[in-house]
């Protein structure tokens, strides 16, 4: 088991190195570097800079060095928590991301929980009431939920609440609390706005999970031990939750790794449409303003958090499911 955890940790480090290469590539992709942008700004304000001055600055920032050296320097800075300057905001990137990352993580975690809270009971109902009206409704909901892009669902809900309910659902806070310091009333206000965002992002994941839960529970319900228990007169509800549900939930728990990147993706795009104060809109404006320093840092922070989240979920699975532990001990 320790060797499994060790191997898993090693993979995680490998993934993070790969993520950092991608992050660096994003900064390097657009033509020009930080200085070309700076030069443009200076020219706009009427100041000019001599070739020699430019070369001096280039040396100062290390932009004359080969790419791999720049990369190593950049990684070293990143590890020290220095993510550079955002030229769009003229603020350190760390500060900009720091303001919003808390809500982003909160939203993703709540959405993950909501996905399971919706999918597992609906999946159980669908399997135990196979081919009933409820089962068909869940199936239709599942398919349509999978087919509807997150942002479209957000748009439709926005339109519905705006024109029918006369209530604006954009943003996490009402206008009077936007700049107010944290207080009980502000938290309450946020709780009113949160459900729409969570619902939008959770729908796609829920739709897929319902189908997994339904089919794995249906497989389980046909097994001999269920029939034996039933013939011995075990009460139906007790029979269901004691064994089949607990086994059927396993494939669901093991999908956390696949679900988390999906939820983070969904959260980003939904946050842009609903204008939530997460890193989503920040990433979007950074990309449209070609503020690659900020954009690449956001992509990297999101990817790293997702990788860590997946690692935690794998460890949880190891703890929950004795079969994995046993399997690992056998192979080790």
């Amino acid at each position: 088991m320790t060797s499994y955890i060790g191997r898993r940790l090693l993979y995680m480090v490998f993934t993070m190195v790969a993520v950092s290469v991608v992050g660096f590539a994003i900064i390097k992709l657009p033509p020009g570097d930080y200085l070309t942008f700076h030069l443009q700004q200076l020219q706009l304000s009427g100041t000019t800079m001599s070739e020699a001055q430019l070369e001096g600055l280039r040396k100062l920032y290390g932009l004359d060095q080969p790419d791999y050296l720049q990369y190593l320097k950049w990684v070293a800075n990143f590890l020290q928590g220095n993510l550079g300057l955002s030229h769009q905001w003229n603020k350190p990137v760390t500060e900009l991301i720091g303001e919003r990352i808390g809500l982003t993580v909160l939203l993703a975690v709540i959405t993950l929980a909501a996905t399971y809270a919706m999918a597992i009971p609906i999946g159980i109902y669908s399997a135990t009431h196979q081919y009933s009206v409820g089962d068909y409704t869940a199936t239709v909901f599942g398919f349509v939920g999978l087919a509807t892009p997150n942002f479209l669902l957000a748009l439709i809900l926005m339109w519905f609440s705006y024109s029918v309910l006369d209530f604006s659902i954009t943003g996490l806070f009402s206008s009077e609390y936007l700049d107010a310091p944290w207080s009980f009333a502000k938290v309450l206000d946020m709780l009113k706005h949160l459900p729409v965002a969570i619902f939008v992002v959770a729908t796609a994941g829920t739709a897929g999970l319902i189908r997994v839960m339904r089919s794995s529970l249906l497989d389980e319900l046909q097994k001999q031990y269920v029939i034996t228990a039933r013939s011995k007169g075990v009460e139906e509800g007790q029979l269901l939750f004691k064994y089949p549900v607990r086994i059927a939930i396993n494939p669901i728990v093991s999908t956390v790794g696949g679900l988390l990147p999906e939820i983070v993706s969904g959260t980003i795009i939904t946050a842009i449409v609903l204008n939530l104060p997460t890193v989503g809109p920040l990433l979007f404006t950074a990309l449209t303003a070609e503020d690659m320093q900020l954009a690449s840092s956001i992509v990297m922070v999101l990817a790293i958090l997702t990788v860590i989240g997946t690692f935690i979920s794998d460890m949880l699975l190891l703890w929950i499911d004795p079969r994995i532990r046993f399997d690992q001990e056998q192979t080790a």
Partner: protein
Amino acid sequence: MSEAVAAGIGASDAAANERYYLASQWQLIRRKFARHKLAKAGLVVLAVLYFVSIFAEFFAIQDIAKRDTDNIYAPPQRIRFVSEQGFSPRPFVYPLRLEMDREKFRKVYHLETSQPSYLRLLVRGDEYRLWNLFRSDLHLFGVEHGTLYLLGTDKFGRDMFSRVLYAARTSLSIGLIGVAMTFVIGCSLGGISGFFGGRSDMAVQRLIEFMQSIPTIPLWMALSAAMPRNWSPLQIYFAITIILSIVSWGGLARVVRGKLLQLRAEDFVMAATIAGTGPGATIVRHLLPSFMSYLIVNLTLAVPGMILGETALSFLGLGLRPPVVSWGVLLKEAQNVRTVALHPWLLVPGLWVIVTVLAFNFVGDGLRDAADPYKQ
């Protein structure tokens, strides 16, 4: 009497069995697929969608760039059969008349119920060049006089129905080309990984894990934003398909690898190797055909992801840009809630996305069940 019936059943059973045992793999798959009603319906929907999008110029009512400044944000015109004079076997629409509501300071469209305009098949209209080759001005249908806006118009008074049809061509083809690219990358990397094993297998597996463990949308956004602004629409189109397939080949490569690992121990692979067939030829000639059905299922289920990805990127303005139209580009017009509240028909392209993705999912599910040899 009862014996004769029993014998009849026995004979038909035997015939059915014989049909089953003699059928080739593909015949079996086709038969099983035909029993899946939703999948069949999905296939029909997709066939219609692709057919219409291929001949979009002919099915569209007018030129997609034509601006009608008298009919800005015109609501959809309903096709009617019943007028004040009673039932008419020929469908017609009421032309629109724009008026200014002096009290609310808003433009209001009124229906000219006195002059119904009848629909006609095969009318001459705006000139177009089909696939940039054949010059024509023939359209499937149009009206006698006035305008025909089945899905309303946008902020420049352009016909949404025609735009949705042209957009279908872009959105639907991006799915297919992206999947073709996914197929090439997935098969070659999965093939290398499964056939050679060892270190190359290890490297490819880590690469797949890496690709699947990072959130796709932010990565897609960053990559497409890094595209140079001065690229031509065609370059952007291909760049977007490449960006979409960079992330999605992992699933396919896993299937290819798993199947190869299982198959390379088989005797016929050994026979081919002894007969002097090289590794490339063995993979392509002998191994690929044995799990082609799994590949097709996987690819069918990968198309909707591509379509959704393109739609999301274009919706944000990071993907395709006007004058190119795709469903995502059209939905970009619906970003503002106030605009949507006043003109809800701007959301209609989204409905087409949902229908297409649903159809692909149904067909994919049907194919998956059909391709599984252990399911009858």
